[in-house]
C-alpha cells in the first residue's frame, strides 16, 4: 500500500501512509489514539475508499468498492468494534457474508447443517466449547466473541488477517490465547497485521513494527532492531513521556 490518504470532511485522518505485509509474518501497527490506525486498516479492508494512494495485492493494484471485494481478495479483518450481531446465533455469525449453500431442486439454500458442524469444530479447535451452534453471540463473553471473529477470519482462508486491537478488552489468559493464535496463523503462512497499544503484546508476536503518528508513518523496524523503550518513545511521540514514567516506575 502506497501513500494512502484519507480525509473526512475537515479532518485529515491519513496524510500519506505506506505499508506492506508479507506472507507468514506479523506486522505490528502501533500508534497513539487517533493516529489513524483504524482508519488505515479500514481502507485496507474496503470499508473506506482512500482519498488518494494505491493498494497493491500480490503485485496487482486493487480497487475495493466495498468490504466484500476485500474479503473476496483474501483480506479478512477483525474490527476494533466487533463485527458480530449479538442477536444472531454463533454459526450464523460465523458464516455471515460467506454463507455455505446447498442446492435443492435448483434452488440454493443456506446449508445450516454444514455451517453448524464447521462452527462447532472450529470453535473447539480454538478451545471454546459452545453450548450449541444456535447460541446467540450476545450471550458470549467479550473474549469468546473475539475468538469467534478470529476463527472466522482464519477459517475462510484469508491470505491477510487484520486484527484491530484484539487484546484491549481481554484478560491475561484470553490475551495469551489470542497471541498464540496469531502465532499459529502466521506459521500457516498467513500475513497478519496486528494493531495494539501495548508494546509488550506487539513485541511478543511481531516480526516488524510500524509506528503511525498523526496520520503519518514514523518508520518501520524489524524485530530485534528496536528495544521496547525505543518503541514506546516512538509511539508516544518523543520525550514528553519520560518525566512521567520516572515517577511511576517505567512500567506502562
Amino acid at each position, binding site marked *: 500500500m502506497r501513500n494512502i490518504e484519507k480525509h473526512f470532511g475537515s479532518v485529515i485522518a491519513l496524510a500519506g501512509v505506506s505499508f506492506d505485509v508479507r506472507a507468514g509474518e506479523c506486522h505490528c501497527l502501533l500508534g497513539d489514539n487517533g493516529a489513524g490506525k483504524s482508519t488505515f486498516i479500514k481502507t485496507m479492508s474496503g470499508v473506506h475508499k482512500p482519498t488518494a494512494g494505491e493498494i497493491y495485492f500480490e503485485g496487482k493494484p486493487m480497487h475495493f468498492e466495498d468490504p466484500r471485494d476485500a474479503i473476496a481478495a483474501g483480506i479478512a479483518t477483525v474490527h476494533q468494534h466487533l463485527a458480530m450481531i449479538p*442477536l*444472531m446465533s454463533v454459526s450464523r455469525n460465523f458464516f*455471515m457474508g460467506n454463507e455455505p449453500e446447498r442446492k435443492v431442486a435448483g434452488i440454493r439454500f443456506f446449508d445450516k447443517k454444514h455451517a453448524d458442524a464447521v462452527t462447532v469444530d472450529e470453535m473447539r479447535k480454538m478451545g471454546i466449547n459452545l453450548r450449541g451452534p444456535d447460541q446467540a453471540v450476545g450471550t458470549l463473553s467479550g*473474549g469468546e466473541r473475539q475468538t469467534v471473529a478470529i476463527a472466522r477470519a482464519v477459517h475462510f482462508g484469508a491470505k491477510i488477517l487484520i486484527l484491530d486491537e484484539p487484546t484491549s478488552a481481554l484478560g491475561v*489468559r484470553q490475551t495469551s490465547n489470542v497471541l498464540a493464535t496469531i502465532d499459529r496463523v502466521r506459521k500457516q503462512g498467513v500475513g497478519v497485521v496486528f494493531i495494539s497499544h501495548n508494546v509488550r503484546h506487539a513485541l511478543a508476536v511481531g516480526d516488524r513494527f510500524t509506528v503511525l503518528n498523526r496520520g503519518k508513518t514514523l518508520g518501520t523496524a524489524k524485530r530485534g532492531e528496536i528495544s521496547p523503550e525505543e518503541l514506546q518513545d516512538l509511539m508516544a511521540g518523543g520525550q514528553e513521556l519520560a518525566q512521567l514514567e520516572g515517577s511511576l516506575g517505567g512500567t506502562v
Partner: protein
Amino acid sequence: MSNATQPTAEPDERVKEISAFRKALIRPELGGIVGTVAVFTFFLLFAADSGMFTSQGVMNWSVVSAQFVIIAVGACLLMIAGEFDLSVGSMIGFAGMMIAIFSVSYGWPVWAAILTTFVLCVAIGAVNGLIVVRTGLPSFIVTLAFLFILRGFTIFLPQTIERKTIIGGVTDVAEGDWLAPVFGGKIFKGFFTWLGENGLIETFERGTNTGKPVVDGIPMLIVWAILLIVFGHVLLTKTKFGNWIFASGGDAEAARNSGVPVSKVKILMFMFTAFCATVFAVCQVMEFGSAGADRGLLKEFEAIIAVVIGGALLTGGYGSVIGAALGALIFGVVQQGLFFAGVESSLFRVFLGVILLGAVILNTYIRRIITGER
C-alpha cells in the same frame, strides 16, 4: 474463553443448566403460539354458537386474517431488516387506484394494468428504500412522508381524471382476462361443490345460488397469504439472503464490515413490502371490482401490530415470519370474533389496544424469563 486452554471444557459452574424444553421455547414464535391458543380457546368458549365456526364463519375470519398476513409478511421481513414502512396503507390505496385508472379509465387490458402497477409500486418501494439508505434518515420519517404523498395522489388522480374518488367497473373489464383470476379467483371450486352436494357443508337455501355450497372455494387471497408465508419463511431461515436480513437489522455497520450488502438488502426489503401491499391491493380490486381513495387506511399500523404481536423486535434483527403470520391470525380472529360475540363495536378499538399491549408485554416477559436476560 475461560476454558480456552482446556481441551475438554467442563460445564461452567456459574450457569444453571437450561433444559432442552426451555431451549425449545426460545423462539420468536412463542408469543404468537400462546396467543393463538388463547384466542381460539376464548372464542370457542364464548362465541361458539354465534356462527363463528360454521364453514361460512371460518371463511370469514380466514379471509380477514389472510389479508393481514399478506401485509404482515412484508412488514415482518422489513422490520427484521431494521426498518419499517408507514406507507403500506397508502400504497394499498394507491395501487388499487392505479389498476382501476389504467384498466377502466384508460382502457388497458387488465393484465397490463396489473403488471404496470406492480412495477410502479415496487419502484416506489425502491425509492423509499433508496432515500432511507442514502440519507440515513429514520424510515419512520421517510415513509411517513410517502404516507401523505401516496394518499394525496390516490385522492387527486381519480378526482382529476374521473371526477370521483371511487372507480368501479373493474370486474367488467376483467372478464376473460388471464391474470385477473390469479388474484380475484377461487380454487378447489369442484371440491367444495362436491362437499355441498354431499351435505358436508351448508348450502344456500334460496336465490340464484340455491343448492350451491355457502363456501364455494378457497379465495386466491388465502392462497397468496400461504405462498407469501412459505416464501418469507424459507427466505428468512433457509437461505443466505435470510442471514443477511437478520444481519442488516441486527447491526448494519457490523454486517457491512463482514461483507453483507446491507443497502441492497434493505432496499430489496422495501421493495418486497411494496410488493406485498400491491398483492393486497390487486386481490381487493379484483374481488370487489372497484378502487376507492379510502382503501388501506391505517393498514400500516395493523401490519406492524401483527408483526409485533408475532414476536418481532421493533428495533430489528429478531423475529419470524411464522410469528408474524400467527400475529395476523390473532388479529383477524379477534377483530371478527368481537363482531361475532356481539361486542359494542365502538369498544373494538379498546380491545385492540389492550390486546396489543398485553401481547407485547407477554412476549417480552416470556423472552426475558427464558433467555434470563434482565
